[in-house]
């Protein structure tokens, strides 16, 4: 049994949150560069160039890449041979988020859904804990902006809809979102599970390094076909009308019920900030 004080987790969340707020992932920067190179519409090329300039400026001067420093999505894969001591795990995670958003001068964007009163420190984080084998703790930090989160959808399809129905849902969601979620978007897709599990699969898909395909061939084909169709929509960067509407489609799959075919489509803007560390 490995004993870990949750202070170590708090400090890790702090590091990841600080880094994520001011840096795009290298895969995201590379995807934006490729998009700028192949885009034919001048307005979109201008916008993509501005985004790349912005990313360089943000990283160099440690400024938030986007003012929407997001809701803190924290996924902890906790080895079952780890025994935690110290503060409650969720409190430790929230402390890490609280300190990072204060020290980083990040925007505090979390509020009560009804009164709209801001919690003032960007907590609570959306925390998911999965128990895994071994004695390691893998922490993934994804600050999620809501311009794109708002455009996400969950569909409970009938099994008869099949593979084509799944692809239609993905494409339709991006089409309806149009210019609003800051395209070119990254699309996380959950396929299977149940109502809540499916949505989490979609979120998890967004934490995969951009452009990494699903290992299952039939799932990879869905990712590729959906991406091709989305990029035929003509929405383009910022909705200005162009060739690149999405940078990636990533799909995660899990068994579901014989009566159902849940599909969750979680939209992520072009500003992919995701940091990981193993303790």
């Amino acid at each position, binding site marked *: 049994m490995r004993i870990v004080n949750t202070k170590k987790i708090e400090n890790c969340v702090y590091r990841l949150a600080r880094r994520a707020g001011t840096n795009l992932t290298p895969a995201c920067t590379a995807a934006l560069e490729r998009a700028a190179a192949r885009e034919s519409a001048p*307005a979109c090329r*201008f*916008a993509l160039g*501005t*985004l790349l*300039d*912005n990313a360089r*400026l*943000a990283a160099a*001067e440690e*400024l*938030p*890449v*986007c*003012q*929407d*420093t997001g809701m803190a999505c924290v996924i902890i894969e906790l080895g079952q041979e780890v025994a935690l001591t110290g503060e409650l795990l969720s409190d430790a995670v929230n402390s890490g988020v609280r300190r990072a958003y204060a020290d980083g*001068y*990040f*925007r*505090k*964007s979390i509020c009560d859904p009804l009164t*709209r009163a*801001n919690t*003032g420190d960007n907590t609570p984080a959306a925390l998911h804990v999965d128990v895994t084998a071994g004695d390691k703790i893998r922490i993934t930090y994804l600050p999620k902006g809501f*311009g794109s989160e*708002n455009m996400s959808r969950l569909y409970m399809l009938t099994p008869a809809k099949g593979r084509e129905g799944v692809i239609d849902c993905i494409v339709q969601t991006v089409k309806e979102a*149009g*210019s*609003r*979620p*800051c395209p070119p978007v990254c699309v996380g897709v959950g396929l299977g599970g149940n109502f809540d599990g499916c949505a989490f699969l979609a979120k998890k898909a967004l934490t995969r390094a951009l452009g990494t395909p699903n290992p299952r061939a039939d799932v990879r084909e869905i990712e590729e076909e959906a991406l091709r169709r989305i990029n035929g929509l*003509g*929405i*383009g960067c*910022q*909705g*200005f*009308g162009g060739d690149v509407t999405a940078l990636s489609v990533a799909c995660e799959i899990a068994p579901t019920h014989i009566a159902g075919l849940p599909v969750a489509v979680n939209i992520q*803007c*072009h*500003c992919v900030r995701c940091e990981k560390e193993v303790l």
Partner: protein
Amino acid sequence: MKKLRLPLSKEEIKDLHAGDAVTLSGVIYTARDCAHKRIFACLDAGMPLPFDLKGATIYYAGPCPAKPGRVSGSCGPTTSARMDSFAPRLFDLGLNCAVGKGEMCEEVRQALMRDTACYFAAVGGAGAIYGNAIKKSECVAFEDLLSEAVYRLEVEDFPAVVAMDCYGESVYKK
């Protein structure tokens, strides 16, 4: 690239066409979801607004806090469509321009034509660049709303695109 100085005259607005790349310099006021609700509450109660709408430009944005030694934190545009239900009444009351990101609804298009007003799109996600274009920032209302408060910003060379003009044209694909 047209260099525009705010406030714009109606003649200058008539010179703008969807798709034009511009830079904006001058005074803009931030207001997003909560601030709009409060502005509407003021209007409904017949109370004075925190700033004069006549000829003004509203920026749909909520900045990050400024780091020490800086004027503003990152401050890119937020999704304008959430202000669809507010914008037409404000244009009718004299608002000249709005700046945000993404398409706005048919009622906004009608208001822009009726009131000879303009909607600009800034580049969503370029928060650091826009934060650096802010030369002066002052909270003028609803301070309790934190980033959602109304800030009076003086901006210099703010890059934007004419997204919807006063002729009913739009840069967004239908």
